[in-house]
């Protein structure tokens, strides 16, 4: 693999905790695919949604501290699996292209950030830098027979001028990857609808309603599993699925994978390394069904 697939890696706070399986599976597939991830030394929180609801300069400074660390690593691109981290890093970069705003942000920092780092999601480098053909060529266990709905969440691709990747209303990156790896990706009408985000704690009713709709729609189209690219979406749909069932009188039992876990399975990586056992709704039956059509 060429040297170009060499990036600074920003795991994000949830990657060390509630979405540890996203971080594990991301590292595992990148290692297998020859993509080098250099963890940003001593990275700190991007501030997520709470920071930008308080102040944009503060929010950008929390991101810019990390971007300045990447600058020191002499790497031009930072990648992160988390759409919320991504949106903060990208928005900070976007806003700091204005001199006055950049000066205000730098006033809050020990080390000023000059603005030379590009930020991308791991999903973006897989489809744009690695490419579907290269990915497909590495698959040893195709995901045949697996019927999934690819759910992107709201902010991976929006707003388009800032995120600058895929389609803001009808993204296809995950659909295309999973299709290339042999899965059947069903057309999912709610692929960019919000899951209720971080309101699970302060206003649970909102998540029960919005994530409930996503699970209903996934079941209606006959998906055996949902596939996500966002720690918060995954947590709402998986960890809270029982709460959603109780609140809505539903009986969903739909496993919710990170797309990196399914890529990992196709690449023949051990389930343990992909953190499959960390998922709340058991994916056992669904995983056992992969390739079953061939065997029969």
């Amino acid at each position, binding site marked *: 693999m060429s040297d170009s697939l060499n990036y600074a890696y920003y795991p994000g*706070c*949830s990657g*060390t*905790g*509630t*979405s*540890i399986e996203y971080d594990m599976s991301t590292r595992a597939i990148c290692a297998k695919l020859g993509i080098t991830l250099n963890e940003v030394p*001593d*990275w*700190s*929180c991007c*501030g*997520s*949604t*709470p*920071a*930008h*609801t*308080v*102040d*944009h*300069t*503060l929010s950008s*400074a*929390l991101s810019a*501290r990390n971007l300045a660390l990447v600058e020191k690593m002499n790497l031009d691109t930072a990648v992160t699996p988390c759409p919320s981290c991504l949106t903060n890093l990208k928005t900070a970069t976007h806003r700091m292209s204005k001199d006055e705003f950049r000066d*205000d942000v730098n*006033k*809050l*920092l*020990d080390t000023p950030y000059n603005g030379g780092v590009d930020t991308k999601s791991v999903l973006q480098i897989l489809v744009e830098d690695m490419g579907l053909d290269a990915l497909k060529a590495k698959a040893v266990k195709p995901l045949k027979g697996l019927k999934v709905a690819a759910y992107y969440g*709201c*902010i991976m691709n*929006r*707003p388009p001028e800032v995120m600058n990747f895929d389609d*803001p*209303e009808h993204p296809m990156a995950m659909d295309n990857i999973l299709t290339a790896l042999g899965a059947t990706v069903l057309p999912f009408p709610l692929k*960019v*609808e*919000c899951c*209720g*985000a*971080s*309101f*699970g*704690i*302060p*206003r*649970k*009713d*909102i998540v029960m*309603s*919005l994530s409930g709709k996503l699970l209903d729609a996934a079941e209606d189209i006959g998906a055996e599993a949902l596939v996500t690219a966002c720690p918060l979406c995954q947590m709402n749909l998986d*960890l*809270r699925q*029982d*709460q959603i069932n109780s609140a809505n009188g539903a009986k969903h039992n739909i496993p919710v994978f990170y797309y990196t876990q399914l890529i990992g399975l196709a690449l023949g990586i051990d389930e343990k390394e992909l953190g499959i*056992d*960390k998922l*709340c709704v058991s994916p056992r039956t669904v995983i056992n069904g992969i390739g079953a059509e061939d065997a029969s």
Partner: protein
Amino acid sequence: MEIVNITKSYDSSFVKQVEKESGQNMSLCYQCGNCTAGCPYTFVYDQPVNQIMRLVQAGQKETVLKSKSLWLCATCESCTTRCPNNIDVAHIMDVLRHMARREGYAPVPTVKSFWDSFLSSVEKNGRVFEIGLLVSYIAKTGRFWTDVDLGPKVLPKGKMHFKPPQIQGKEEVQKIFNRFKEESQK
């Protein structure tokens, strides 16, 4: 929507302030309603987002700043993405939240407490300490039974740490917050 007598209550400085802080031209909104049509949160809003836009145009400072909608917007960017006049509506909602905070409005206290607990965790540890965040949120709100059912699901999976993260740059992050507080008092 209630009837607003703008000859008595139009506050032009409010409109100018929103435009200055958001960098958006409020008069571009012609009330097509696309933002509201796509907003997943209208069902819990007291004012749908297009009405917030109209109330800002009409200079209705108090009605806007005390609206629950500002605290229930998740910044999902549907409105911004779909606005036919390229107004960054989500940015305006963010700026209105900043103004509401400054003026002391917090009509959805649980949301404010959650965001504040999150940021104090970042300020203290440099990264979010998830269990610490929950404890601080419960202490602020008294909501002891929030998500108690999730504990047995999460804890055996080793996804939550009982000790806060330790990073060397913790003090650098604290300095960002301190300088921010100093700058905002100027």
